[in-house]
Structure formats: C-alpha cells, structure tokens
C-alpha cells in the first residue's frame, strides 16, 4: 500500500493511521463540539490526527489540504467552508491516493468520485422541521421574523429554503422581516432590536438559523419589555447546551437538533475508505426536534 511508508515515518515501529482534519474554525459552540467529537474519537481509536483550523477562511483549508497531501496522510476529513473551489485540492488528493471524507457540509464538484462520502445533516429538513413545529404552535397564523445565517453559506441557504417550504402550506404564516445575523449572538441581538423597533407589536415568532442568534434575540425581546417564549415564540436550530438552558428557563420554545457528534461516523468512514470499500455518497445524520416539554429531561444527557 502506498501510504504504508508514510505511516512508518509518522509512528515509530507501528503503522498507526494518520488522518488530516481540516476544520473551518471555532466560530460557534456547535463547531467546537464537532471538533471535540472528532478529536476524542481519533484518540480512542489510536489514530494520529493532524488537526488544522482554518479560522473561517477557505484559503487556509486549501493550504491545510496541501500540507496533508505533502505529508502523505492516510485520509483527509474536510468540513468545507463553502461549496465550491475544492476541485484542484480534491484532484490532488486523489492523485496522491488519499480518500477525502466530507463532514457537515457538501461540495459542488462535477465528478462526485472526488470524495469518498459526505456525513451531514439535511439542512433543508431541519428548516422544514422547524417550520412544522412553529406552524403547529401558532396554529397556522402569525408574523414571523427570520434571522439568517452567514449569507451564502450552505446551512443559511438550506435552512431558509426548508423553512419556506414548511410554511408554504399555511396561508396565515408570513415572514415579515428577514435579515442576516451572521450566526452571531451580538448581531442577532442588534437585528432583533431593529425588528422590534420597526414593527412594534407585530411579531409573533422568531425563526433563527442557529441557537446563538436566537439567544441574542431573546435578550433583545427581554429588553423591549416582552417575554420571550410567551409573547414572542422563539425557534432555532442546532440544539447546543445553552439552548437547552434557555428552554428550561422558558425563554426558547424549540430547537431542532443538528448533531455535531460526527466523530464515530467519520472514522468508520475513514477506516472503510482506507480499506478500499466504496461508501454511500451521503450518510445522513439523524436530527430531532426538542421543545420545552422535553428539555428538562434530556438536558443532563446533552454532550455539547
């Protein structure tokens, strides 16, 4: 096997698997949970992990893949920042005989044999689940404001698309305002403040593309003298620990889980790919809806 010699170099005596992991960054607690999951899984399987944090820049991810290829790792795990621009890197990896496993977001390539598999949630489905829960809660009628994720990112596009599909069936549900909160708590809060100012008393619900923005919005609502979770329904996606805390406190109504604990799935795929097995192109990660009714029970079992 061509990677054997590299493995020898890296691990004295025994041939440990060496895997490169190019992560986007540490911009949210969700992503940190994903990173930790992959790291601890590598540890427990005795795999040497080359971790590289791109600090939110695709350029850095391209550099990381270069470095992984030059080091002749056995496999590469890539959490792509955006969907395009990976072709040259993926081709180089294939030329070097290194399989690439994509996690949490897909890429657009003409030739889908360039990567081994994608392990990710279905963002469109998440948006749809959120919409369905909200429709039920509002009984099909109400004004919704939307806090979008970073413009152009796959989760922002898909969660918007899924949500719009979900509410399409209900004529009484309308998105009255929609603006980007950049997936960040502070921006989420500022945008929500502006929403509340410009349409006082007309907002029934908030749909946020992630928990951080929802938590910012909750504060804006409180400062405007309203009760989040009661006067204005708040729905978001991700299911991080803070969101469960907020649900227990009655301020957040519902969060759609987007499971970041991809480590086990990812390394299963790595081992299979290195062994030469073919994998399905998309391994869908199962997500669930959590609302206040179950929050208190499950909160202690949450890992992130």
């Amino acid at each position, binding site marked *: 096997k061509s990677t054997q010699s590299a493995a020898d170099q890296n691990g004295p005596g025994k041939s440990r698997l060496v895997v490169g992991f190019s992560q986007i960054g540490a911009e949210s607690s969700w992503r940190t949970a994903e990173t930790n999951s992959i790291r601890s899984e590598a540890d427990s399987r005795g795999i040497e992990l080359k971790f590289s944090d791109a600090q939110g820049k695709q350029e850095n991810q391209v550099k990381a893949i270069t470095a992984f290829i*030059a080091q002749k790792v056995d496999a590469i795990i890539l959490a792509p920042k955006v969907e395009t621009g990976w072709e040259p890197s993926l081709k180089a990896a294939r030329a070097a005989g290194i399989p690439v496993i994509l996690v949490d977001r897909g890429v657009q*390539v003409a030739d889908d044999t360039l990567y081994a598999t994608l392990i990710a949630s279905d963002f469109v489905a998440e948006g749809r689940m959120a919409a369905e829960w909200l429709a039920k809660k509002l009984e099909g009628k109400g004004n919704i404001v939307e806090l979008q994720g970073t413009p152009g990112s796959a989760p922002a596009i898909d969660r918007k698309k899924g949500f719009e599909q979900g509410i399409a069936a209900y004529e009484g549900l309308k998105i009255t305002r929609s603006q980007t909160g950049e997936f960040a708590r502070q921006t989420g809060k500022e945008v929500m403040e502006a929403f509340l100012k410009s349409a006082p008393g007309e907002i029934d619900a908030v749909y946020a593309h992630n928990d951080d923005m929802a938590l910012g919005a909750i504060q804006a609502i409180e400062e405007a003298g309203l009760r989040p979770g009661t006067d204005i329904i708040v729905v978001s996606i991700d299911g991080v620990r803070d969101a469960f805390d907020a649900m227990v406190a009655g301020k957040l109504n519902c969060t759609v889980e987007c499971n970041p604990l991809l480590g086990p799935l990812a390394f299963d795929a790595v081992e299979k790919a290195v062994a030469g097995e073919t994998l399905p192109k998309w391994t869908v990660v199962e997500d669930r809806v959590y609302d206040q009714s179950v929050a208190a029970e499950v909160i202690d079992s949450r890992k992130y």
Partner: protein
Amino acid sequence: MTAALRRNWPLLGTALVLVVLYAAASLAFPGFASLYQFAHLFDDNATLGLAAVGMTFVILSGGIDLSVGAVIALASMVLALLMKDGGWSIWAAVPAVLAMGAALGACMGAIIHVFRLPPFLVTLAGMFLARGAALLLTPDKRIEMSSKAEIESLSSVLIQNFNLPAMVFLAAVALAWAALRFTRFGRTVYAIGSDESAARLMGLPTASTRIGIYAISALCATAGGIVQVIGTGAGDASAALLLELDAIAAVVIGGTVLAGGRGSVIGTLLGVLILAIITAIPSYHGTLNSWWTKIAIGLLLLVFVLLQRLSQRWAAGKT
C-alpha cells in the same frame, strides 16, 4: 562590495530567516521539503502575493492601501457576474475587470493626491465601498461557476507543480522588480516615499505617479481576485477579509520601510513565503487549536519584527 552588502542587509536578513525557517520546518516535518509543498507555497498564496506586490509600490511611496482585500472580493464577484449572468467570455471579462480595478485604484490615488488626504483614510473608504458593492451585487454573496469550462481549463494548467496562480504571482514579482528598478516611474515611487515635497520640487511627475501607484495596487489586487476565481471557481463577496493586513505584514517583513523610500519587491516575495510557511506549519504540527495558531502567528510576527529591528540597529551601528 561590502558597501553593497551593507546596503542590502535588511534583504539578506529576511532571506536568512526564510532559509532558516524553511530548513527547520523541513527537518521537523516529513513531506515539508517536497516540491509539491514548495510549489504550493506559491499557489496557495498567490492572491496574497499579488496583493503584496501591489502593496509594495504603495508602501515604498510612503502610503498604505487598506482596500486590497475588498477589491479582491469585488473583482471576483464582478468577474463571475460578467461570465455567468452576462455570458462574457473570460478573454473579454478579465481585461474588463482589470480595467475596473485599475480605475478604482486610480480614483483613490487621485483623491489622495489632489486633496492631500491620508491614504489610510481614502483606502479605508475604498475598502468599505468595494466590500459593500461586492456584497450588494447578489443576495447570495457568492457566485458559483465551477462548471464553466473556461475556468476549469485555466485551473488545470500545471507546470512542474506550479499552477496558473503561482505563475501569475511570480510574473507579477518579476514585472514589478523591473518596473521599480528600471523605469522612471519606479524611481519616482522611491523618490515620493523618501521625500515627497523634494520630489515635487525636483520636477518629478508626482501626481501621475501617485495615481499610478494606487492603480497598480488595485490592479494587482484585481489580478488576485481573478486568480482566486480560477482557483476556487466562484466569486466570493466575503473573500480576502482583512487580507490587506497580511499583505502589509508581508511587505514589512520583506524589509520595506513603512515610512517609504526603502525596500524592494524581492523582499516582499520573501515576506510572502515566510508568511506562507508560518501558516502552513500548524497543519503539519497537527495538534494546535485555532487559538494557538493565532497566538503562534502573532508571536512569529513579533519575533520577526524584533529580529529585523535588531538587524537594522546593527546595520546602522556599522555605518
């Protein structure tokens, strides 16, 4: 001979650090010394490199250009828009985008020169303008076009592991070197940076040169944007955020004095390579969290600048 050596000391110092850094990384990490990685130091940093080449002109003239990152993003968006929505061929779109970039830079240069405004501010305004325009172009902030055959054929050009972006970068370095050393324009750039009022009194064309300097900087950034589209197959309105700071760092590490008048584009090339190595190392090391990467880059920058200060003092002490 020794005089020439002394005059070029900052450049030699930078080269020395580069060699030591490269050697140390090669010894510490298997695979680092490969031709593949070497070529990719240029490939993966071509956009930064191009921006830094343009920035060299600006800093040599005693100015600064904060707009380059935004201009890169704008150029990539406009190119993608022209080709995708406008149906332009790449051979028509590239010159058009280059012309747009140069015009934008020329405008900034003209405002700086005519109204005697600080470059920091004018280019900061330019940065907001270009970034804002790029973001406003499409609601998605990104234009995918990897399926375009023209882009694909360009992105697969490869000579000895060096791809098109790397070649454009190296060509820009060579051109800039010749322009700075062997043209009146180039010498006037140094003269303006050294003492602008003197340059004016000496009858040098300060107005056209200053406008040219900022046009070149924006032109290089635009080329960086084009190269980025070729490399990634997309126009991206949030590309190259704060890349100007890396470009400035590369120029300064390359021995060009921020106050202007002294330095060279060869130094900039070395500076870009040093930054390239520094950012590649964490991927080899493999256990650094992102915060450690940031801290490490900060510290390396510190060590570097301090070394440079010491070498400057040493050189000054010798004269």
